[in-house]
């Protein structure tokens, strides 16, 4: 069976469309419509004169799908390559579903930990600190720190996926996201410590000597520790803020 190759234009379209993976995020299929939308230009190429098979391929990608959006690029690239093999009758269509389901959970966990748990806090706290010097400097730093890594992971992940599903594991090993996660978490902790130190120094010390300053530092550190313990016990920031708001209202009432 002859299959039309993926055109450069379609490859670019798939790359661009991955940014809309969550465009129709819903509680049932989650990113399913976004994934089908992203891979559609490739399917149109592969099944150019076979509308029935094109329809089956689209239905395959409307199945449940959910992963961390930036890591979705890797699965998307590999799925394009798998679809090419299916269209050329070199592979079973069920392999695509198995591949996607097998990877979306683990890549989602890796991506959530790296992007939401490490990179974003690091970029946010760096931006917040620099915004104390100038707001625009803070914003520029935050966007640069985050997107510098985010866009590279998307690009390289997509390219690795396009080399075929076999290349995915190799790329993940080379990317060493688990090591990078720990590095960025540590950096975020250092910057957050600096952030807490700056504000504790600003608010707590209004005069007094060494012991007053020491007591202020210990009080601020205890407050951070208390909040962190509350977070670990699944108390949300909104609940803490609501409690503080209630305390504020009571102060006004008095």
């Amino acid at each position, binding site marked *: 069976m002859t299959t039309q190759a993926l055109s450069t234009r379609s490859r670019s379209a798939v790359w661009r469309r991955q*940014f*809309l993976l*969550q*465009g*129709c995020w*819903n*509680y*049932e*299929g989650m990113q399913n419509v976004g994934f*089908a*939308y992203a891979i*559609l230009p490739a399917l149109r190429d592969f099944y150019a004169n076979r509308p029935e098979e094109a329809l089956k391929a689209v239905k395959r990608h409307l199945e449940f799908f959910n992963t961390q959006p*930036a890591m979705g690029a890797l699965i998307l690239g590999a799925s394009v390559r798998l679809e090419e093999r299916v269209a050329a009758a070199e592979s079973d269509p069920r392999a695509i579903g198995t591949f996607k389901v097998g990877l979306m959970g683990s890549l989602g966990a890796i991506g*959530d930990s790296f992007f939401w748990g*490490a990179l*974003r*806090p690091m*970029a*946010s*706290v760096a931006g*917040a600190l620099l*915004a104390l010097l100038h*707001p625009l400097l*803070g*914003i520029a730093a*935050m966007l640069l720190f*985050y*997107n510098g890594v985010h866009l590279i992971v998307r690009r390289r992940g997509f390219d690795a996926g396009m080399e075929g599903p076999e290349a995915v594991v190799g790329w993940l090993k080379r990317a060493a996201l688990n090591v990078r996660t*720990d590095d960025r*978490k*540590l950096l975020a*902790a250092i*910057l*957050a*410590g*600096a*952030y*807490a130190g*700056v*504000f*504790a*120094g600003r*608010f707590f*010390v209004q005069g007094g000597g060494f012991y007053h300053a020491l007591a202020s530092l210990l009080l601020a*550190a205890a*407050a*951070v520790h*208390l*909040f*962190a313990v509350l*977070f*670990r016990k699944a108390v*949300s920031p*909104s609940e803490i*803020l609501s409690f*503080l*708001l209630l305390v*504020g209202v009571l*102060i*006004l009432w008095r």
Partner: protein
Amino acid sequence: MAWRFLLAILLGGVCYLDRTAACQLMLHRPLVVATLMGAVFGNMAAGAQVGVVLELIYLARLPVGASIPPDDTGAAIFGGSAAAVASSSIGLDAGSFTALLLLSVVVSEVGKAADRFVRKFNVRIARLTAESVDRGDIQAVEHGLLAGLTLFAVTGMVLALLFSGAGVVVSKELLPRFGPASRGSFAILLPALPLLGAASVYSCSRTERTAAVFFLTMAAVFAGTVLFRWSA
């Protein structure tokens, strides 16, 4: 004032799209949004002050799987616009600043509820898309995605109008009702808010060495800040 709201709606729509539906380039982060809203309503620096504190507070809630974190974009729209308006009327004193930050929690929960509604409504769009594809219409996928995006964008714009309007009303009508002394007593809670933000980062950056590096850096920077203030 009308053009300011129009600009707030447009910028809010873009930021809300970035939050879930498109790109995730961090244009929806409170630091960006509050600064933008501050600029739109006349005082960028006041908006940025709110953004610096709000940026970290909600980081402990990760958007993992189907869980929806509180709407910190909405909180920043409210806080940024309110801070800018307050700074040009009653002045952005510590009490008003604290009150705005704490009131933003209401907004963040309303935004979260709206986000949940959009995602529930998108189930219908996704089902309609699947039904159309079953009937042989492949293009329905593109229409379905466009419908989902439009819903996210329109909801974002409505929320931006609602929250910026609420910010202006709170700063113009609610805060002036309390005298400077009352507002001043509110300021006693202010030191807790940046520390809550730092704790948020600390709790989501847990490694074996996190506690040591966090508290050592905190102590060093605190000492530096205090020495700088004493010498100044």
